[in-house]
């Protein structure tokens, strides 16, 4: 029953896309209609996904796709969990867009693709054969590509869309090859037969690599993350939120489905790849985020960081699972899924907030914002909560999932393999470093954009956004807090999936008194978000009350003291790039090259001094540029080969023939 509801809803989403295309150019208010429809449908799918049902998976085969094979769909606990993530984010984005979408100049470039994008993500989570999976994957990629290209007047967006298309094709090709290997010589494309088959170790390793490349490129795993910080900010903000909050999670789903489900029992070294790549991704993503001044680009880089965190946890789960340590494996796996859920919540809020800032102040460069807390109080409040949540500060949800990952790392000295014993502590240190940098990154982003004094006319004249957008953000923030103070319910929701995929489950958390969580045992570690939240609130209230009763209540407003030299111009404030300078100097050289130029005129010269900052991405310069140049070189060569004389062509054919005969002779 739930599967039928979901499939009909997906069909309805596709219908909504068609309707939007048909309505383009009519005078009807298509924006509200389409987003309203999407909101309703997403809520329906969400309800169907969380609907209680037996542990058995539901399957259905539809007579579509390849003849005589059909399209298979399946709803199991993992699909249901990711359907819930996607549709919660989808519903919030649609609701937000009912208000935000009204500012769109060309709604017909977005409206038809938005529902299709949602439908594609849902279908990926449902697909039960390789063909449907890839078709759904391409639906998701292409519709989001169209959305990235929505504002194609901007040359930068066109470039982003181009790179996105190239990388998406590359990722899909990797997955295609991976599924080809999995299907084997008999060509059994359905997941059920892949699952039943035995896979040789070399083949399984190859598929793992291809899954890391294919699903990893969509998720934003380094080094194939390069398109993400370009494409995610280019789309309209509610689509950015979906791409960062939901689509990367669908990619994580793809990885889990292939590696944890289809590939069979893991070898111990499987975990090393996801773990090291995840750690590198986390550190690199957050370092790049720390130096961005474009708010949406900063958020996109922070998504890369969070994907790294999720992959670290998945790698740990693989390592534990391979060694038959069911409980730690369940802990790491649960932490990965929990973090995926959390990230979809707070990253959606942050992108919605960036969109609100964009409408309210017309700027997304934080260097030209400032003081928005006075002009957009509600958005500022919600963004503060989301910034706390993503910085993993208690009592919000981000802390719980990172805490669980740390707990899983603390269990890993008992892993028997030496390679893992050496890799895991290093990964743990990198994770701790990126967690600390995240807090700094969001202090900077929030402090420069929302606090202080307005740095531009536009920021000084900013207005609060519409109530639809505000309520979507507030609702998600409430969920962040709820998941942070009542994590036991989330853990118990995930535990059937953990049992299915890593063969173990954490102790039932609901039975622990006072709503605490204790992943292993209470004597080992426990955390109670609710109590901490109540406790903080109570002591802050008590302190405020006592101070107001006992102390002087006199208060006066005056000019800022500023060490006795108050300066009126807002330009004297610390800027975003000056704020990140210490971290850039201390850590930056690892992943990027930052060059500062100072043009200081001689004394007596009245020309202003100029400070310039140039940042180059080592990975882009060292890997992508040579590859791109190499492709260009080969293309040039082939282009010249098109215009040979007839003698030249005959000579070429002769040379090829000689070469072939040589090869055959040596082969024999």
């Amino acid at each position: 029953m739930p599967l039928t509801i979901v499939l009909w809803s997906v069909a309805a989403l596709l219908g909504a896309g068609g309707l939007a295309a048909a309505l383009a150019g009519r005078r009807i208010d298509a924006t509200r209609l389409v987003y309203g429809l999407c909101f309703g449908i997403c809520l329906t799918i969400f309800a169907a996904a969380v609907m209680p049902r037996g542990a058995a998976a539901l399957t259905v085969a539809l007579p579509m796709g390849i003849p005589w094979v059909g399209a298979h769909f399946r709803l199991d606990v993992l699909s249901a969990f990711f359907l819930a993530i996607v549709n919660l984010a989808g519903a919030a984005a649609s609701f937000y867009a009912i208000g935000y979408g009204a500012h769109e100049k060309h709604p017909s470039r977005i409206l038809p693709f938005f529902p299709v994008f949602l439908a594609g993500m849902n279908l990926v989570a449902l697909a039960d054969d390789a063909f449907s999976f890839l078709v759904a994957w391409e639906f998701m990629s292409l519709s989001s590509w169209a959305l990235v290209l929505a504002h194609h007047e901007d040359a930068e967006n066109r470039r982003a869309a181009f790179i996105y298309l190239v990388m998406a094709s590359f990722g899909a090709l990797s997955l295609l090859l991976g599924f080809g290997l999995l299907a084997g010589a008999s060509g059994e494309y359905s997941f059920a037969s892949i699952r039943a088959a035995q896979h040789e170790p070399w083949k399984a390793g190859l598929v793992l690599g291809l899954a890391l490349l294919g699903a990893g490129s969509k998720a934003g795993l380094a080094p194939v993350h390069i398109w993400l910080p370009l494409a995610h900010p280019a789309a309209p903000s509610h689509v950015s939120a979906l791409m960062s909050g939901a689509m990367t999670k669908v990619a994580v789903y793809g990885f889990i489905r292939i590696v944890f489900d289809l590939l069979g029992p893991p070898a111990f070294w499987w975990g090393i790849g996801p773990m090291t790549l995840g750690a590198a991704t986390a550190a690199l993503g957050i370092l790049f985020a720390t130096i961005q001044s474009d708010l949406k680009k900063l958020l996109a880089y922070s998504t890369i960081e969070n994907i790294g965190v999720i992959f670290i946890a998945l790698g740990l789960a693989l390592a534990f699972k391979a060694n038959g340590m069911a409980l730690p494996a369940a802990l790491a796996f649960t932490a990965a899924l929990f973090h995926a859920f959390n990230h979809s919540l707070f990253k959606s809020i942050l992108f919605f907030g960036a969109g609100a800032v964009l409408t309210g102040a017309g700027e997304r460069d934080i260097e030209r914002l400032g003081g928005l807390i006075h002009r957009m109080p509600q958005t500022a409040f919600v963004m503060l909560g989301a910034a706390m949540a993503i910085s993993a500060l208690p009592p919000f949800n981000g802390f719980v999932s990172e805490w669980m990952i740390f707990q899983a790392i603390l269990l890993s000295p008992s892993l028997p393999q030496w390679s893992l014993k050496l890799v895991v502590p290093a990964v743990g240190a990198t994770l701790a470093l990126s967690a600390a940098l995240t807090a700094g990154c969001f202090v900077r982003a929030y402090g420069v954009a929302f606090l202080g004094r307005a740095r531009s006319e536009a920021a000084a004249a900013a207005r609060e956004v519409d109530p639809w957008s505000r309520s979507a953000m507030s609702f998600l923030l409430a969920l962040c807090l709820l998941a942070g103070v009542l994590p036991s319910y989330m853990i118990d929701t995930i535990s059937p999936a953990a049992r299915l995929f890593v063969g173990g489950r954490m102790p039932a958390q609901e039975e622990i008194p006072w709503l605490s969580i204790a992943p292993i045992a209470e004597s080992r570690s426990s955390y109670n978000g609710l109590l901490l939240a109540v406790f903080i609130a109570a002591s802050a209230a008590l302190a405020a009350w006592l101070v107001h009763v006992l102390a002087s209540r006199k208060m006066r407003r005056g000019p800022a003291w500023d060490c006795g030299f108050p300066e009126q111009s807002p330009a004297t404030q610390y800027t975003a790039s000056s704020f990140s300078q210490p971290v850039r100097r201390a850590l930056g050289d690892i992943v990027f090259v930052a060059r500062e130029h100072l043009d200081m005129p001689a004394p007596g010269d009245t020309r202003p001094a100029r400070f310039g900052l140039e940042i180059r991405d080592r990975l882009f310069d060292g890997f992508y540029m040579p590859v791109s140049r190499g492709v260009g070189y080969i293309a040039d060569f082939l282009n010249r080969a098109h215009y040979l004389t007839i003698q030249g062509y005959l000579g070429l054919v002769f040379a090829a023939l000689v070469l072939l005969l040589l090869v055959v002779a040596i082969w024999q």
Partner: protein
Amino acid sequence: MAMILEIAAQGAQMGLVLALSPLLVGLTRKAKARLLRRRGPSLFQPYRDLLRLLRKETVLAENASWLFRSAPYLIFAATWVAAALIPTFATGLMFSWSGDLIAIAALLGSARFFLALAGMDVGTSFGGIGSSRETMFASFAEPATIMIVFTVSLIAGSTQLSEIAASTLSHYELRVSFGLALIALAIVAIAENGRIPVDNPATHLELTMVHEAMVLEYSGRHLAMIELASALKLLLYLSMIACIFAPWGMAPAGAGARALGLGALAYVAKMAVGGFLLAFFEISTAKMRVFRVPDFLGAALMLGLLGTLLLFVSRSL
């Protein structure tokens, strides 16, 4: 009845840390002054300072937002809750299982998050410089803290401070990784509390300061809360070091009044020793340049990582 006793013990612990923290600040100041052959202010001067600040009128910058006004209370509350989670004179107190060492680190992180934001709220250059530097220090100090937590909890088999203290008490042995963690934690404590050589709590010279630059715009009761919170933080770090590395004299869970009293005495003695050692360290070193602090904290990070690695490869080190 047992419940009431537990609540009373927990309340006593929270009251004790609150009451003792200004005294600790007074003690380090006095010790420093005496070591420098000055007389120094009275031990109780910090209390007088707090009372004076509370009685004064609060001056708010025109541009200050609600965040600026609520931050002192939030910073204080987060620090106080973190301090409440640390066993001081007795282990196994009521709230101790609602958060472990990682949660304590994160609570202090929340306090710093608000402090750094408050520094940027008025929109002055000094506030920004303080926040920016504080953030940089934190990006080294926090991973170092986590590595220390890893080391300590791998030895004790738990991240709960009460369990760690009990484990140290029950089988105390000299371990390489334990020593590394102690040095690393001392470095982190010095940096986090803005003591010499990282920051100078006694100056008001703009360019040498981090903590002071962030709170420059605060006055009156807000400043009192911030000062109290920073005194609490100093006490918290000393208590944490005492609890992990020198848990002697602590009353076990459910102990009688006599054991609790002895535990409290031992705790006060430990804090006095800690304050004196801090003062001694501070007068024997000079403040370092801001860009040398990452090296200083990097050493703590490396020591912590080394301690963890040793435990990963061998349980006995």
